[in-house]
């Protein structure tokens, strides 16, 4: 993928415009930011089911005899723990421990699939290719794969009639190759909302349209709605999921970013391990925390976080959570101020709003299985 002057349309572009979506250029992709309204869509995912076009995400397949050893050296989590048809959330790090990207890793019987952030596709590919060793082949399938996410407690009900796969037997973070509406698809019980749901991979543009239309129709009885990137962002923030480019970037390590659970220092050598061992030994100087603000405010990225008069950090993501009902934010703050109950201030456009460090997720009543 090289420089593109025109934002790319996903195969579902015409569906979005027909549904009255507001389209935005998102890292070179023309994506729906909202249909009926961000808060309305957000609530429908929490209570019913929403459907997202997230075809902008990148997909790399890793093939070859040495695929496992290669993947294991690239990612921070222990790929050796992955069973066939299981999914793992993991980090991809530089030698200095900073994150190249965060991704989900799928183990197929004969290869691995990495699903990466759209904004990072060229950078990730470059990084992965630089480190190829032995019999390893990386296939960038990003342009062929469409990805439809079905999220919300009624996801299974919406999907059930369209597939012969036994959805009840797919546990959270597992997947099956199968069919949806007669279209070959990978059905993965994963998501980015804190709700139960599926992510459906289809490597045929017309097939993606078929699946979208079929889900719209089959989901009608359970109130399915299309959901844009706006609600995707507030949904993920309420459950404390990081967004690359906001909460994590090249200069943040997984340890600082509440991703220690996907860093397996004991698994053997991998890129970034030494730096993170050192960081762990010396102690972290800052941590990503959740903040709950008191009073009316809408925290946004870049707003200063203060302790007394001193700026000690900045908001990385923020919103007024439709399901939590209060302003919430994430920010990196010095470790000594990162404990639950720590009292801080967020400078919201010159107005000082009191904030407390709280445990994550902000929203705890999700249906995730």
């Amino acid at each position, binding site marked *: 993928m090289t420089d593109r002057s025109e934002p790319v349309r996903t195969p579902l572009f015409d569906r979005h415009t027909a549904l009255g979506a507001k389209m935005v250029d998102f890292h070179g992709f023309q994506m729906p930011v909202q249909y009926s*309204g*961000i808060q309305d869509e957000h609530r429908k995912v929490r209570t019913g089911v929403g459907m997202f076009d997230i075809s902008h995400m990148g997909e790399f397949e890793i093939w070859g005899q040495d695929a496992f050893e290669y993947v294991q050296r690239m990612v921070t989590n222990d790929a050796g723990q992955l069973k066939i048809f299981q999914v793992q959330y993991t980090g991809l790090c530089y030698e200095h421990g900073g994150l190249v990207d965060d991704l989900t890793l799928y183990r197929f019987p004969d290869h691995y699939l990495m699903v990466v952030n759209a904004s990072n596709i060229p950078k990730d590919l470059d990084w992965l290719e630089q480190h190829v060793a032995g019999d390893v082949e990386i296939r960038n399938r990003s342009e062929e794969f469409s990805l439809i996410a079905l999220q919300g407690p009624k996801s299974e009900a919406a999907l059930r009639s369209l597939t012969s796969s036994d959805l009840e037997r797919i546990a959270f973070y597992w997947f099956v190759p199968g069919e949806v509406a007669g279209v070959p698809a990978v059905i993965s019980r994963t998501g980015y909302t804190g709700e139960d749901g599926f992510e459906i991979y289809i490597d045929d543009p017309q097939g993606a349209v078929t699946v979208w239309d079929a889900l719209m129709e089959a989901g009608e009885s359970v109130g399915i709605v299309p959901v844009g990137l706006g609600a995707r962002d507030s949904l993920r923030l309420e459950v404390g999921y990081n967004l690359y480019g906001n909460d994590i970037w090249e200069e943040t390590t997984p340890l600082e970013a509440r991703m220690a659970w996907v860093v397996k220092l004991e698994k053997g050598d991998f890129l970034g391990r030494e730096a993170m061992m050192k960081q762990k030994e010396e102690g972290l100087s800052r941590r990503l925390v959740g903040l709950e603000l008191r009073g*009316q405010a*809408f925290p*946004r990225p870049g707003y200063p976080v203060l302790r007394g008069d001193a700026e000690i950090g900045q908001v990385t993501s923020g919103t*007024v959570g439709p399901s939590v009902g209060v302003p919430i934010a994430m920010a990196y703050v010095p470790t000594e101020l990162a404990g639950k109950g720590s009292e801080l201030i967020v400078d919201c456009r010159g107005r000082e709003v009191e904030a407390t460090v709280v445990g994550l997720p902000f929203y705890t009543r999700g249906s995730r299985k």
Partner: protein
Amino acid sequence: MNIPQDLVYSKEHEWCRVDGDVVVIGITDFAQGELGDVVFLELPEVGDTATTGEEFGTIEAVKAVAELFAPVNGEVTEVNADVIDSPETVNEDPYGNGWMIKISMSDPAELDDLMDASGYEAMIGEGE
């Protein structure tokens, strides 16, 4: 796009309903649509001075924050407390219950500097 004929409009997407020396002010249907869900409003107090072209409040929507600019000089005579309590009214009824403040104008001639409905329609048409 709803652009009522009986209102006048500012470049900053406020509408004004003129009633003698008093103008009722809100934001246009176009503006609320661009902002998306309005989450809260900061509005001035009754008795505050409004200065043409200067900020009199802010409107926080999910996607963005926007300043509200006074379309005329004068004194704030009324603030819509209901819209502060239920900011979604700005999205639902921008020209009705979504009104924000009333200003008693110090110079009604200033209204001539604002646009009529067709002028406003042309302006937002150009931006698209």
